[in-house]
Structures are given as structure tokens and as C-alpha cells.
């Protein structure tokens, strides 16, 4: 990943609000509180899509533990998106991804994008593109031969985002209550 990249190509947001570019970097322990809160926003958004994605009462505690474990795991990729300019030093988004083995398929390793979230003001205008590119590079550097993304089946915004960038559905997960 480049040392000083940004969203690139952002001129202005809707209504003339200056669009805010972001700067992605590997997350640190100090970022955890901010990332936990963003992760919870994402999970609550997911809950909107399906009642089987209901957020647990202890989700915040879980998020802290999961993220802490991720930071310690060499096969994990956790990136923090910093605001720039006036928002410098503020974490405005994050990516959580993991390289895992595919015992039966080639290529042998896939990089799975588990969670990706940007605060609303930092979306569009190429920011997502940039985040996806940087994440893919980080996963490739850890040996991934393909990149996959998990998100709620009903999330059409995510679905459109990925299919526009060459992704296609390869496995489906269906669920029902027991």
C-alpha cells in the first residue's frame, strides 16, 4: 500500500459540500474504540436487511474482542481510513478482511472482505474503489489468489458495488430459523 494515498478523483460532493478523501493505513490498537463503533454501525445496518442478522446485546464487547484478535492474527487485514485535512487523525472508516485456505479449490487462498464501512460523508466519488484496491493489494500480499466479499444478500447497494467491479456470486448462503 502506498504511504500517502487518498480517495482520488473527488472534486465535490452533492450540493457542493467538499467531498472528503480518506487515507487508508493498517489499524493499530489505538484505533480500536473508533473501529468498534463503526463496526457496530455496519452490523446495525445489516440488521435492516434481515431479522436473522439481529445484532446481539453484547455485540460491542464481541467487536472489541474480535478486532483485538484480528490485530494479532498475521492472516488478518484490518485497515483504518483516516480523514484528511480538517478530519486528519479521525478514523472515518475501516476494512476487516481475512486470508483463508481453500482446501478443495484453486487458487488455494482467498482473501475475504468481511466488513467494510465508511461514514456517509466519505462514500462515493471513488473512495470505495480506492478502499477495495488497497484491500485487495493487502490480501494479495498475504498470499490470496482471489478476493471475495461477504454482505447481506438483500444489500443491493453492496451487490451493485462489487458486480460493477468484476465480482460475481460464487457461493450462496441461505438460512432459516431453527
Amino acid at each position: 500500500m502506498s504511504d500517502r494515498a487518498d480517495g482520488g478523483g473527488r472534486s465535490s460532493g452533492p450540493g457542493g459540500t467538499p467531498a472528503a478523501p480518506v487515507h487508508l493505513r493498517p489499524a493499530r490498537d489505538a484505533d480500536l474504540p473508533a473501529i468498534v463503533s463503526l463496526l457496530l454501525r455496519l452490523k446495525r445496518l445489516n440488521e435492516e436487511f434481515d431479522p436473522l442478522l439481529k445484532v446481539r446485546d453484547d455485540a460491542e464487547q464481541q467487536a472489541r474482542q474480535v478486532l483485538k484478535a484480528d490485530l494479532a492474527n498475521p492472516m488478518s487485514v484490518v485497515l483504518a481510513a483516516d480523514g484528511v485535512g480538517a478530519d486528519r487523525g479521525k478514523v472515518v472508516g475501516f476494512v476487516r478482511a481475512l486470508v483463508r485456505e481453500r482446501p478443495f479449490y484453486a487458487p488455494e487462498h482467498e482473501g475475504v472482505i468481511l466488513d467494510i464501512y465508511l461514514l456517509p460523508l466519505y462514500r462515493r466519488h471513488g473512495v470505495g474503489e480506492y478502499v477495495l484496491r488497497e484491500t485487495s493489494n493487502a490480501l494479495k500480499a498475504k498470499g490470496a489468489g482471489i478476493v471475495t466479499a461477504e454482505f447481506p444478500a438483500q444489500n443491493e447497494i453492496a451487490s451493485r458495488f462489487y458486480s460493477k467491479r468484476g465480482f460475481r456470486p460464487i457461493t450462496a448462503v441461505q438460512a432459516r430459523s431453527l
Partner: protein
Amino acid sequence: MAQGAPSRVDPVRAARRKPRDRGTAAERSEERTDLLGERSVELSRYFGGKIETVPKVPVRSLEDFALWYTPGVAAVSRAIQADPESSFDLTGRWNTIAIVTDGSRVLGLGDIGPQAALPVMEGKALLFKVLGGVDAIPIPIQVESPEQFIATVEAMAPAFGGINLEDIASPKCFGILEELSKRLPIPVWHDDQLGTAAATVAGLLNALELTHRSVRTVRTVLLGAGAANLVTARLLLALGHPARQLTLVDQKGILHAEREDLDELELHNPWKYRIALTTNGGGRTGDLAAALEDVDVLLAASTPNPGTIRPEHVRSMAKDPIVFALANPVPEIWPEVARAAGAAVVATGRSDFPNQVNNSLIFPAVFRGVLDARARSIPDEVVLAAAKELARGALRKGLSDRHLLPTMEEPEVFPHIAAAVGDTAVRLGIARRKLSHDEFLERARTLMGRPARLVRALARARLTPPMPRRRPPRRGTR
């Protein structure tokens, strides 16, 4: 109104008797609403509804049916088949609109369904005719989804010169209006969005004038983020109101780009989501009190509760604050309370206080204008032209803090609004018929003046029964 034949046509007059000087304003208002409601049920039963269709051609004998109906009419059909646009010349389409609702948000009654919405739509049709000279057909429809609503209205469009959407819940009303405006070759209007917003903007422009402010520098808070205020925000931005200095407040507090419910809004109310991203440049968070500090203007279109805005809220605003408390039937703060707290200009949605912001000042004239221009749509430029002309109309009797907008008693203003609408449609290239300003004005005067004469003539001839005394005997009307 006196018993017997109406001396003049004014459907809002009944609701305008001065409250008697006893009890609190809220009690008076409630008591009066109850009385009006009781009487309205009686009269609805007595008259069997409020509108009927009447032939506009002579019928001298049954032989004339051969002209108005088959076989003669076949040639008229063929002519329209050959030139579909001629339906505006050869049928009543040029002056006929549909009032369509799914009954999902009727007045303050909520989701009462299409059938129960019919009396409201009939009332609106009456207003359209009497105030605008527009033939409006009430069509409440039973549908299960916005998609079905859109398909149904699209299917009925060939019969109409315009569509008035009415009493549809927010936020689905935004998507329905947007999609229908895109699909239909005729103007589509949703009064709860556009009519209220246009009247609000008109009032605000004059309030700014009175207090020597400009829309380009003013700081404004919108309380309530429903159909009306989201469009008011959009219109203000179009007028050059700085986005950074505009703040919306709803039940969850100040709307800002990092509020917890933004993702949910992106999915379910993208219109509010977009406004959240562009406004509130100072990144204010918190409640109404935090939003109002040092702000010039408060435009409230929220819940009918006079405690929603408190005197200390008004006191915390900038010098000479402007306060519009537009909830109906009870404003968010009583005008005298707002004034005592320092408000320089106060407006409400009610006719029994000065400065009524009333969409009836807008919609009849807008439809008169778009129908006379045979417009294809109603873009925001047209809405703003109507708002500005309404604001200008107040100058005729002199602008003051108690005469911010023309009242319904100043009908000479309305043809001018219609003409401004027609002019704008021509300028934007969406008019099928390009009249001059004077032609639009003259036509609007004629067509808007006719219904009053019609109603008087019907009453004189006793074709409209006189207003009965209270508790009329039941009588068949069919």
C-alpha cells in the same frame, strides 16, 4: 355564512369564524373543530357528497346525443388517434386532473385507507374547482405497494391533463412523485410536499424582506423532516441559501452526517439522507435548543403541540428571529407566546391568526398555470416562480409583520401566480402551448372567476339546495 344561498363562494369561510374569547386557545380550537366536524357529517349526508359532473354542452334534444356520443363522436376519436396531442383540444383533458391517494396519511388522521380518504379528496376537488377553475376527479385507490400505485396512476394518465397526489405517507411520497414525474407526459404534483413548501418559501422571502435579511446569508433551522420540510430545504438551497447554514431537526434531534440512523436513512429515505450529508456545515449535534442558538429563522412543520417550541428556544435565536409554527391544527408555539419571546415575524398554518401559510394559496393557481400552458411537468423552477409571485402578491396590500402573505380574501393575486407559472413553463420549454404573459393572465382570470358565478347561478336556480339548518331531516339525494 348566512342560512340560505351562499352570497359568495368561499369554502374556507366556514372554518374562519373568530374563536370566542374564552378558554385557552387550545380549548377553543378543539371545541371549534368538534363543532365543525359534527356539522360536516350532517351536511355530507344531506348533500350526498360535495361534487357532481355537469354537462358543458347544450343538449337541446335527444338528437344532440348523435353529436356528443355515437355516431358523431367516432370522428373525434379518430382525430385523437391520428394526433394524440389533440386530446387536449377535443376533450376536457385540458382542464381535468386526477386527485389520487392511497389513503396512507390523510390529514392528521394517519393511515385510514382509500375509502375513508374520499371525503377529503372530494373536498380538495371542490377547492380545485372553486379556487382554480380546475375539474378535479377524486380517485382514492386501493394498492399494496408504491410500485402498484405508480403503475395505476400511469395507466390512468391518458384521461388527465395533470395529476395531484394527495395524502400519501412520507417517505414513499417522494419516490412516487419522482417516478411519476419521470414517466408521465403531464404535470404531477404532491401538495404536501410542493404546495406547503412553496407557501412556506413565499412567507419566508417576505419575512426576510421585512427583517432586512437575504436568503443567501441567513441561518435557518427546519423542525420536522417530513414531506414539506425536505422540499422546503431543497427549494431554499435552490434559492442560494448556504447549505452549511441550514439545519434540520427531527424527533431524533439535529440531523447530521454522522448520526447513528444515517445508514438506515440511506436505505429507506434517501431524500432525507442526501439532505443530511449536505446541510449543517457546523456539524451541530443535539436537540432543538442546540440547533437554534444564534439562528435567524425557524421553520417548524412538525407535531401539533404548542410546547414543541418553547419561549427560551426563541430567545436563544439571533436578533429579530423569524418563527413559522406550521403544525395543524395546533401550532408548535402559540403566536403570542413566540412574539412575547422576541419573534419579529410569526406565521402559522391557521386562518384565525395573522400570516397563514396555506397551500390553498398555491395549488389552484399552479394547476391553472400548468394546465393553461399544457405543461409536461412541474420542475422546481415552476414551484419557485409560484412562491415568488405569491410573495409579491402581499405587496399589493402592503407588506407588514401581520400581512406577510396574501390571504384567501385577496383572490386577485391568484391569476398572477398562474401567469407566472405559465411563463416559467414556456421559458423552460415544457409548455405545449406558449401563450404570452397577458394571455396567461387573462385566461386565468376568466377560468378562475367562472366557478364562483356558476355556484351562485346554481344556488339562485335552487339547483344547489340551500344550506340546511342544523340537524336536517334525512333525505334521499340519489
